C-alpha cells in the first residue's frame, strides 16, 4: 500500500511528514469541480431553455425582497434574544408560576411546526386582538419561535458555569442579581455567541415561511417573479444564491468565534 501519494488527500497532521502536494488547494478545487460537473450534467439533461432576460428585468424586486428578509431577521433576532434571556431565567427561577410558564412556552414552541404557528398566530390570535399588520406579527411570530430555541441555548450556557464559581461568589457576599450580572452573564455571553450565530442563520432561512401570509420577503418575491415570467429555475436559483450570500458569512463568523473562545478557556 503506497502511502506517499495518499497523503495528498489528507489534512496535514503534526505526527506525520508534511504532504507532498498543496493539499488544501488541490482538494478544494477537486471537490468544487466535481460539484460543478454534477450541476452542469443535471442542467444539460433538462429539456429547459434558460431565459434570463425576463428575470433580470425584475432584479429590483429581488433586492427589495432580500432587504425585507434582512430587516425581518434583524428585528426578530433582537426580540428573540430578549425573549430567550427572559425565559432562560424563567427556567431557572424558584418562583413556580414563572418556571412553569417558561417551560410551557418552550415545549409548545419547540414541539409544533413553524408553519402551524404562523397560521394560528396570524389568523387566530392576531385577529382576535384585531392586529392586522402582518409584518409586525411576522416579527413577533419569528421572535417567539427563535426565542424558545435561544432560551435553551442560554439555559445550557448558564448551567455550564461551574457550581463552585457560584459558591465562591456567594461567599464573597454577592447577591443573586450581582452573581448573574458580574459572574454568569459575562461568561455565558461569550459561550453562546457561536450557537447564537447559528440561530441567526436559521432565522434567516425560516423567515421564508412568512411568505404564506403574504409578507413580501425574498422567497415570496421570487415566487411572484416566477408567476409573471414562467421562468422557474431562473427565479429560484438566484433565490438560493441570495440566501447563501447572507448565511455563509454568518456561519463562517460563527466558526471563527468558536475557535477564538475555546482558545481562551
Amino acid at each position: 500500500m503506497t502511502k506517499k501519494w495518499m497523503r495528498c488527500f489528507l489534512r496535514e497532521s503534526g505526527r506525520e511528514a508534511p504532504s507532498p502536494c498543496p493539499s488544501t488547494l488541490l482538494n478544494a478545487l477537486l471537490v468544487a469541480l466535481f460539484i460543478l460537473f454534477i450541476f452542469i450534467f443535471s442542467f444539460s439533461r433538462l429539456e429547459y431553455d434558460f431565459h434570463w432576460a425576463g428575470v433580470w428585468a425584475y432584479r429590483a424586486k429581488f433586492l427589495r425582497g432580500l432587504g425585507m428578509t434582512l430587516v425581518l431577521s434583524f428585528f426578530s433576532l433582537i426580540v428573540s434574544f430578549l425573549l430567550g434571556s427572559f425565559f432562560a431565567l424563567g427556567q431557572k427561577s424558584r418562583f413556580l408560576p414563572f418556571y412553569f410558564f417558561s417551560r410551557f412556552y418552550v415545549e409548545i414552541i419547540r414541539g409544533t411546526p413553524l408553519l402551524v404557528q404562523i397560521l394560528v398566530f396570524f389568523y387566530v390570535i392576531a385577529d382576535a386582538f384585531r392586529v392586522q399588520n402582518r409584518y409586525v406579527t411576522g416579527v413577533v411570530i419569528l421572535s417567539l419561535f427563535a426565542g424558545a430555541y435561544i432560551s435553551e441555548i442560554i439555559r445550557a450556557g448558564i448551567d455550564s458555569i461551574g457550581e463552585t464559581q457560584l459558591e465562591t461568589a456567594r461567599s464573597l457576599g454577592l447577591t443573586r442579581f450581582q452573581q448573574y450580572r458580574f459572574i454568569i452573564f459575562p461568561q455565558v455571553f461569550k459561550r453562546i455567541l457561536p450557537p447564537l450565530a447559528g440561530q441567526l442563520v436559521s432565522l434567516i432561512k425560516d423567515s421564508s415561511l412568512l411568505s404564506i401570509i403574504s409578507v413580501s420577503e425574498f422567497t415570496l418575491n421570487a415566487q411572484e417573479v416566477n408567476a409573471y415570467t414562467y421562468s422557474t429555475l431562473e427565479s429560484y436559483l438566484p433565490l438560493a444564491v441570495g440566501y447563501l450570500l447572507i448565511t455563509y458569512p454568518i456561519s463562517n463568523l460563527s466558526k471563527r468565534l468558536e475557535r477564538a473562545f475555546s482558545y481562551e478557556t
Partner: protein
Amino acid sequence: MKEKIIGFLFVMSLLLFAGCGHGEKNVLNVGMELAYPPFEMTDKEGRPAGISVDMAHELGKFLNRPVKIWNISFDGLIPSLKTGKIDVIISSMTITEERSQSVTFSNPYSKAYLALLVSKDSPVEKVEDLNSKGRVIAVKKGTTGHLYAREHFPLARINVFDKESACVLEVVQKKADCFIYDQMTIFTNWQKNPDTTRAILKPFQKDFEYWGMAMRKDDTELHRQVNAFLESFKENGGFDRLAEKYLKDEKETFDELGIPFFFSP
C-alpha cells in the same frame, strides 16, 4: 461473501432506478392542482376526482393511452410541463398571451370570468373602486386574478397567497377588501360566508377567459390529437354530461341570476 453483498446491492439499485422516471413510455402524464372543486378535487378516499379528471380519462381512452394524474400546485404546472414531468395540463387554465409564449394551448373548451368576493364593510361597490390607494386585494399566486389585479389596479396593495382558502380568510377577517377569482368559486365562498362577505358577480373583463389544455410547444402531435379529442367530445355531448353530473345546481342558480355559465364556448 463480500462479492455477494455487493452483487445484491447492485441488482437492487438497478431495480430501484428502473422504477424511477415514468417507466412505461406510453403513459399520458396529466398535471392539475387538485384544489378547485368541482373541476379538480379529491374524493373521500383521496383519489383525484372532478370534471378535469374525467376529461383526462376520456382523453386517455380517445388516445388509447393509460393516464396518470399528477397533483401539482397551480404555479408549478407550467414549469413541470416544460421540464417534462407532465405531458399536458388540464387544470382549468386560462389561455393568455403570456402563457402562450411558454406553452401551446388546445382550442378553448370552456369559458369563465373573474368575479370579486368583497369584504362586508369594504367601501368597494364596483370594480373601478379597486384602483385606489388604500385598497387591499388578495389573489392566488399565478392565477389570472393575480395578473389582472397587477395590470389594472396598480394603486392598490396586492397580497399574494398560495391557497384560495387563505385569500378567502383574508377577506372574511377584513384584512383585504376583496379576492379576485373565478365566478363560481366566488359564488360558493360567498354562500359559505354570508355575514362577512358579499359578491360582485357581474363580469367586468373586456372578454371572457377561455380555458385550454396546455402542452409543450414542440409537442405538435399531441396538440393535434387533443384538439381532435375536444372536437369529438363536444359532438358526443361529453361536456353536457359533465355539467349535468357536477354542476347541475350551480348552473340552475346562475341561470336564475342571469349570469353566464361555463361550458358554452
